[in-house]
């Protein structure tokens, strides 16, 4: 890819290409559309000319109109997903396309910024995906509040909010499962009896929890939480027969903290979801009340701006509530406690090896800090005593000290 391409020309060329390609794609035969998966290079500038050959036909629109809403939605998501599997994927992984470039070629901040742009563009498109049917509904059946409410409460809108806040709760919890399982397996070295049984349990439950995360993300954290508590209890029962009881106890605490974290995370997220849904409901209500509202809504850009502004205001209000602050504090405390227990476990694992662990280093840092402080005080007193007998310096010193607060 040419690095010095004029950005404006590049932009216009790509914009035109994308419009033409998408129009072409929408007019393909269904069968042709299916075979479209292969030549994803149509999304690249050089491959663009193949778009019509690949997609061909002109009855795809008719097919789309006949399809069920669910199918349409799936197709749409497949489009987006397919795009994500092709050129968006290397873009979203920190400049994967730059792998052949010298590492210092692109500053990290440029890479990070592009990732942020990419993230926001996904939110923008997700909201568009939500807004188009919403807009249509408002035009066709503005008084169908039940339908509007179902749209607001839909998973699709929840997905928009998740992207806006960059929540990855299922992924995060899945990571916890994996790490916890790995940990318990590792624990087997020290407490074989307890670890073996727990590792088996965790392994067996992993697939079930993963499935729950995928199909019912709302309930997955609670399921995971209860599983962790169950494991923790069983681990506690094994403590007495363990070769290293403190290690098993720390492991039990870790599982408990994971559970606490999962609960806190769900509670925190739920507040954000609820606020987002209420905000959208109010925004739509206000629009329906206003004679010109629907016309304003015709512009997606205008809707996006109103949506951002309304949410910003609503979340500012939420953030000041006792309920939110309590949830946020619970989440932050459970996060750091989880971290602390993990650190403690690491030390327990390492204490039999000839390495310096963190708490030992901390003790050293503390001692050094205290020595530096003492030295500073000593120097201050020593210097003051040395200067006092000398002429002007003493005079200055005296004057300076006179202005120093009594308690200083």
């Amino acid at each position, binding site marked *: 890819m040419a*690095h*010095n391409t004029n*950005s*404006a020309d590049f*932009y*216009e060329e790509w914009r035109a290409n*994308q*419009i033409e390609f*998408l*129009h072409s794609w*929408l007019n393909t035969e269904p069968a042709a559309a299916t075979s479209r998966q292969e030549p994803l290079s149509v999304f690249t500038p050089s491959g663009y000319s193949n778009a019509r050959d690949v997609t061909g036909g002109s009855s795809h629109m008719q097919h*789309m109109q006949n399809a069920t*809403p669910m199918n*349409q*939605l799936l197709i749409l998501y497949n489009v987006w997903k397919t795009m994500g599997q092709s050129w968006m994927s290397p873009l979203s992984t920190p*400049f994967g396309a730059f792998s052949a470039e010298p590492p210092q*070629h692109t*500053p990290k*901040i440029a890479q990070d*910024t*592009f990732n942020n*742009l990419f993230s*926001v*563009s996904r*939110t*923008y*498109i997700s909201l*568009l995906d939500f807004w*188009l*049917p919403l*807009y*249509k509904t408002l035009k066709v059946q503005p008084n*169908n509040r039940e339908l509007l409410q179902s749209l607001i409460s839909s998973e699709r809108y929840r997905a928009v909010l998740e992207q*806006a806040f960059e929540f990855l709760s299922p992924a995060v919890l899945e990571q916890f499962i994996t790490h916890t399982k790995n940990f318990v397996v590792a624990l087997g070295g020290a407490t074989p009896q307890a670890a073996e049984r727990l590792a088996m349990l965790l392994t067996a439950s992993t697939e079930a929890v993963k499935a729950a995360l995928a199909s019912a993300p709302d309930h997955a954290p609670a399921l995971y939480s209860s599983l962790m508590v169950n494991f923790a209890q069983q681990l506690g029962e094994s403590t007495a027969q363990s070769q290293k009881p403190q290690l098993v106890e720390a492991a039990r605490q870790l599982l408990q903290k994971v559970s606490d974290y999962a609960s806190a995370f769900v509670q925190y997220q739920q507040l954000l979801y609820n606020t987002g849904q209420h905000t959208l409901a109010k925004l739509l209500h206000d629009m329906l009340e206003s004679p010109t509202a629907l016309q304003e809504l015709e512009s*997606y850009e205008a809707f996006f701006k109103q949506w951002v502004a309304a949410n910003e205001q609503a979340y*500012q209000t939420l*953030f*000041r509530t006792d309920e939110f602050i309590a949830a946020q*504090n619970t989440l932050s405390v459970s996060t*750091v406690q989880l971290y602390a227990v993990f650190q403690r476990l690491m030390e327990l694992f390492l204490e039999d090896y000839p390495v310096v662990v*963190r708490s030992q*280093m*901390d003790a050293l840092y*503390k001692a050094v*800090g205290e020595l530096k402080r003492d*030295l*500073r005080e000593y*120097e*201050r007193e020593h*210097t*003051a005593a*040395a*200067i006092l007998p*000398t002429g*002007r310096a003493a005079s*200055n*010193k005296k004057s300076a000290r006179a202005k*120093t*607060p009594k*308690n200083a």
Partner: protein
Amino acid sequence: MKTHQSSNALPTSIFDNPDLAVEHIATMTAKLFGSYAAMQSVHDVEVGTAPKDVVYEDGKLKLYHFRPQPGVRQSVQTPVLVVYALVNRPYMLDLQPDRSMIRNFLAQGLDVYMIDWGYSTKADRFTTLDDYVSGYIGGCVRHIQRTTGFDKISLVGICQGGTLSTIYSTLYPEDVNALIPIATPIDFSTNEGLLFHWAKSLDVDAIVDAFGVVPDTFLNAGFLMVKPFARLEKYAAALDLHDESEKLHNFLRMEQWIFDSPAQAGECLRQFVKDLYQENRLVKGTLQLGKRTATLKNLTMPLLNVYASNDHIVPPSATVPLNEYAASDDKTLLEISGGHIGIFVGAKAQRELAPKIAEWLKHRDGAAKARQQARLRTPAKSSSDHNHQTPSPSAAAPKTPKTPKTPKTTPSNSQTLPHAPVSGRSSSTSKRARARV
């Protein structure tokens, strides 16, 4: 009662309006590709480019001395030490040549020093608020006193750095010619700013006990949540910058600063949150630093308190009350329109802030200058200077340089000002001190 049938009859897909969908998706796709291409053309995001020398170091701390601008006559003799916050990097004040409070200061003829705290590491877990104030700021003040001959310098504190400067001024008022806190939290009893509200109930003990040194990512998560949807708006707008190279670079410089947040020394953060945010001890006169107590009644030096009218991070209700509590007879309150960041990089602030500060300082330069000249006429007698292993804070250090120098009066003098030989560790750092940055 509506039925599912009627609901299903309604269009519910993006394809109900394919032209619109195509338009938006294509536009967004093209913008992303444009941004991708534009980012590839970015080879460097330069920040903090005003010419400067490192003149003193203490651990991770560096003290910069900015070189005067050619042809600019030094209008204020008293050195100015800029103390930045611990939570971000100080190059915000020199973000780019045309958005630089530092360059604006230099253009006004000020002699400018600035502290760069560096990045905290695990070794800083037990670094206290007193270490930052009495130790690090004290060391910098001492170095400037020794090398310039001035027994008092002016402090310009930025945001949290203003709080640190104010505390220093309460403990060591004899070192401070004038105090200029900018966007500085002093009265923490307010709940106007969201961070103030959140910090009141923050369990900082749990956080510091767990992390030791609190990672930047943890703190940034909090900062970014203050305005979560503004982030969307910001990046959506930034997608249009791909064909405007200059604006894109400006945007990247700001991004660089926003996400360049050092981790926080645990004990300092613990005291800052508990004693200031939660207990408002500075205003109450009960803030304890080592064996000393900071009280605003000791602020007897001239005070110029600068605040931003629309500051959502440090609201005016946290900054303005300083002028009520300070004991000084010479107090000025200056409002600059803009927000917490705009006060430093906004176009209007670029025109207004530095000239007003310089003008204010000019009228408070005489006494310090006279003292310096008198001291330079006095033969150096200090026998204790060479005993210093580390720069010592407070007025206890000798004010007379070992080798009397001609005071800086012209740009050329300033430019070639030799750094006074400094003893102990300072001496060892003096070689590095001239390293060009």
